[in-house]
């Protein structure tokens, strides 16, 4: 089987400082991978390099495109990469307002991505947008309201709807449940799990919340100082961590 995403030797420096160094892994269709580590460990840098938001100093990010098979997304042209960002890729930001258009209605936010891939029929777009609002548990009566009138949890769910409406195959998520209160987090996790299973999505989730990765991710990478110190099956890394830093990370979680 061809990996959906094959990351090889990704390195990003900020001057003399290392953002992330020599990260490699393969992600297969339907797999969800978590990346954990403390603040400054390079996990967001890595995510942004993979998603095309940052240009790495070295390495390849090979994506198995629908039409042309595996292609290095770092060296592909800007329009091609942008197209990928609107179709097969999705990016869920930690702060929903970074991924939403706050001045446009909820329906417009979802519809915009559809229009970007060529949908033109207003009725169809509105129907699809309403359907997706329902899937992320936002009442259809709110379709014409702006996200500024939504709670944080609703904004995050709207951002997810906006991202998934075009049926992407790979979703990048940066702390998707960060900043939400725990009851909203649980609902969002359940929603994400269902969507991943039913749509056969692959996802890469950056978080510092070990409970989130345990519930969502099949595989886990632990990063420290820009490098991957341990990787494996999520429950194995969490229950039997091998590296000193992973052991410290797991044993530092407060029990409730």
């Amino acid at each position: 089987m061809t990996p959906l995403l094959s990351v090889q030797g990704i390195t990003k420096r900020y001057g003399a400082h290392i953002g992330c160094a020599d990260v490699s892994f393969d992600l297969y269709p339907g797999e969800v991978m978590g990346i954990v580590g403390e603040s400054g460990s390079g996990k967001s840098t890595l995510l942004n390099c993979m998603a095309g938001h940052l240009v790495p100093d070295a390495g390849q990010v090979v994506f198995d495109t629908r039409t042309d098979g595996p292609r290095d997304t770092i060296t592909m042209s800007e329009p091609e990469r942008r197209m990928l960002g609107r179709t097969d890729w999705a990016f869920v930001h930690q702060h929903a307002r970074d991924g939403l258009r706050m001045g446009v209605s909820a329906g417009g936010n979802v519809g915009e991505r559809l229009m970007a891939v060529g949908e033109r029929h207003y009725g169809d777009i509105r129907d699809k947008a309403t359907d997706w609002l329902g899937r992320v548990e936002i009442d259809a009566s709110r379709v014409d309201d702006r996200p500024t009138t939504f709670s944080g949890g609703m904004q995050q769910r709207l951002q997810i709807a906006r991202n998934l409406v075009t049926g992407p195959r790979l979703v990048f998520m940066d702390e998707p449940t960060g900043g939400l209160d725990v009851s909203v987090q649980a609902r969002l996790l359940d929603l994400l799990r269902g969507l991943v299973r039913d749509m056969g999505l692959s996802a890469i989730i950056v978080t510092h919340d070990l409970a989130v990765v345990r519930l969502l991710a099949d595989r886990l990478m632990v990063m420290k100082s820009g490098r991957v110190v341990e990787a494996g099956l999520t429950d194995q890394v969490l229950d039997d961590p091998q590296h000193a830093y992973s052991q410290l990370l797991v044993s530092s979680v407060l029990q409730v």
Partner: protein
Amino acid sequence: MIDLSNVSKTFTLHNQGSAVIEVISDVSFAVAPGECVALTGASGAGKSTLMRMIYGNYLTQAGEIRIGGLDIVRSEPRDIIKLRRDVLGYVSQFLRVVPRVPTLDVVAEPLRALGVPADKAQDRASALLTQLNIPERLWSLSPTTFSGGEQQRVNIARGFAHTYPAMLLDEPTASLDAANREVVLSLIEDAKVRGAAIIGIFHDEAARDRVCDREIDVGRFTPGMAA
């Protein structure tokens, strides 16, 4: 079906003076389809550790653990995930679920992961929950608020939802009353009849004698514990 050869495990505690603890050394045994084998030994002998190694939850430092032909000591995460979805079931002592998910969906989930349609998966889940005496009025609630015995039964229902060819059972009858214990033992017997290879930990000796064909004393493989 389940085949262990020369399996050893150590824990290295890097943050506690790099202490190295040898837990299990040189275990070899095999479990055939339709057979149930009990792991026995005193507390701390490594029964649960060994079971977790077989599930791939703990890393194994040496040896081979083959389940249906796959050596899980050297497998990629995605192969282990596939094995756990299709072949290898595990009923742990603790229920770990996404909060707020209804009990019926928790039990149906292993089948949904296999691509079984929602209604069929829920039918099977309902049948198991009924059999295990979980009242229907609780099915739409999350099991996180249930009593210990109820959670245990939800865990068992979930573990038996799919007919796995290989199963690991960690104290499946602990904290159950006589009627429910009987249901669980008959589920295990049914699984054996359909050819499942089972490894179990039972502190309940009567249950062990009834469903298990053989016993393996894990204490024999524990460095420093052998008599």
